[in-house]
């Protein structure tokens, strides 16, 4: 019954380093070290403001895209400032494959970072809107790069590159994270080739530990925070909500 459950109260620690990855993405390194599985996330509390989910891009770091109020404040924090962290949460990638293709779309590359160098991942496809948004491509050995505007790598969507790779028949698993519309399209490609996937999804989160129900996806009540965030093909095939809609803070259904 007794959970060692102070892991579910934000533990504040100091930021030790802030790295500017792209004009809109920063990596925040902190004192605390998590033992985690790639794909797991933490809830990040900005004291007095709000708390948001962020994938661990390393044992002691998160990588944040400035998209709104909280992420904007996160971008303004300096070494020595306190942030609160709880987790790690979720399942992480199980990497049930021997020859894996990893696909990162935009800042969806973040949860893949701890997997750079993983021997079972034969190739990375990293895509972004433009050159400025590409993350860490020079840290990866075998990488194919594409941008929407062609400013770097191929001018293409990641789905196109993935289609080409899968056509080789060289892969037994595709792992990915990125905008849900992209994931939906990528899933279609994978299903076409009969290749299994593990995709990391996002939904609004409140508790992060399977209690509030806010992140549950239709029609099976699959909880992104606890059952996910990584969904495999079997799950994705059931999630009618996937790629279509989500719920806002009030719980109301809104289109993606």
């Amino acid at each position: 019954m007794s959970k060692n459950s102070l892991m579910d109260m934000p533990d504040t620690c100091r930021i030790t380093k802030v790295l500017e990855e792209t004009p809109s993405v920063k990596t925040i390194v902190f004192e605390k070290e998590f033992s985690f599985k790639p794909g797991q996330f933490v809830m990040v509390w900005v004291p007095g403001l709000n708390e948001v989910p962020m994938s661990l891009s390393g044992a002691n770091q998160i990588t944040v895209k400035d998209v709104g109020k909280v992420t904007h404040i996160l971008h303004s924090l300096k070494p020595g400032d306190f942030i609160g962290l709880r987790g790690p949460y979720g399942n992480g990638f199980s990497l049930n494959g021997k020859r894996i293709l990893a696909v990162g779309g935009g800042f969806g590359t973040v949860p893949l970072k701890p997997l750079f160098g993983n021997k079972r991942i034969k190739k990375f496809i990293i895509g972004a809107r433009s050159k400025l948004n590409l993350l860490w491509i020079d840290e990866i050995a075998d990488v194919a790069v594409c941008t929407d505007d062609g400013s770097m790598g191929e001018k293409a969507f990641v789905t196109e590159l993935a289609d080409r790779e899968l056509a080789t028949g060289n892969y037994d698993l595709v792992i990915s994270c990125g905008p849900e519309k992209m994931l939906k399209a990528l899933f279609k490609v994978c299903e076409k080739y009969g290749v299994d996937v593990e995709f990391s999804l996002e939904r609004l989160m409140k508790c992060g530990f399977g209690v509030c129900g806010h992140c549950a996806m239709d029609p099976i009540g699959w909880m992104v925070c606890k059952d996910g965030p990584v969904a495999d093909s079997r799950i994705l095939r059931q999630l009618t909500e996937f790629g279509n809609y989500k719920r806002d803070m009030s719980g109301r259904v809104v289109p993606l």
Partner: protein
Amino acid sequence: MLETKIAEVRLRNPTVLASGILGTSAAILKRVASSGAGAVTMKSIGPEPRAGHNNPTVLSYGPGLINAVGLPTPGYKNMSEEWEQLADLEVPVIASIYGGSIDEFVEVARFVAGKKPAIIELNISCPNTKKHGQVFGFEPDVAGEVVSRVKGVTEEIPVMPKLSPNTPKLKEVAKACEDAGADAISAINTVGPGMVIDVNTAKPVLDFKTGGLSGPAIKPIAVRCVYDIYEVVDLPIVGIGGVSTGRDAAEMIMAGAVSVGIGSGVYYRGIDVFKKVCDELEGFMEERGYKTIKEMVGLAHE
């Protein structure tokens, strides 16, 4: 062996998903039903869309959970998919509702009654907003008025006010609800409220600053409240607060409950807490020679 009844509503077993835990969509309610719950309660529904508080909203402080989700709701009108999908749920659905005024309670109740839930639960006990919830549950006359006004529009659907442990007038409130025509009572909502302050930053951690306590920490309070209510009213009681084992359920039933709500238990033992509690309760009943839940109800009053 585990069958029980809340008012005229039959339950296959006494475990009920408490309001606000997981109950945000029909999909997750179905999942809870197939995890073994005897009935499920929807997250409290209000009159208008409401986002609730910012995060953090739900945390564990160790001995229990503390939450101030702040009654987020799509609003009763914006839930047509949910209502449709709820129709084929395998167990009774309890619709929890709230309002910022008695008129709003009535407005929501009228609409919701039309969707034919098994029971309408009145949340007059949430400590986590300023104008809703427990402000309607502290004084017997106010609580009674909410019940009787709602009863006026719900026709045959049983009405079950959910009481707060945070009023010293709990017994009087329960009695007023009975007198006003309540068909059942559920108790308790969260305790306190409490506050957790992060000492490194000297900031209250919850966005709303304070939050209600739930889970093992509050179980004795819940048991005492159910015991007290049982002494003053003749209504079926759904005992809620800190239940996460079969023994906890037995304790609540002996205090006077016909059925037990489980909320934080989902945190402590996973979504299949319902099945676990049922199995344990059944084991306990066999060992001690109880044949029905009914035999155990209120036994602690000798």
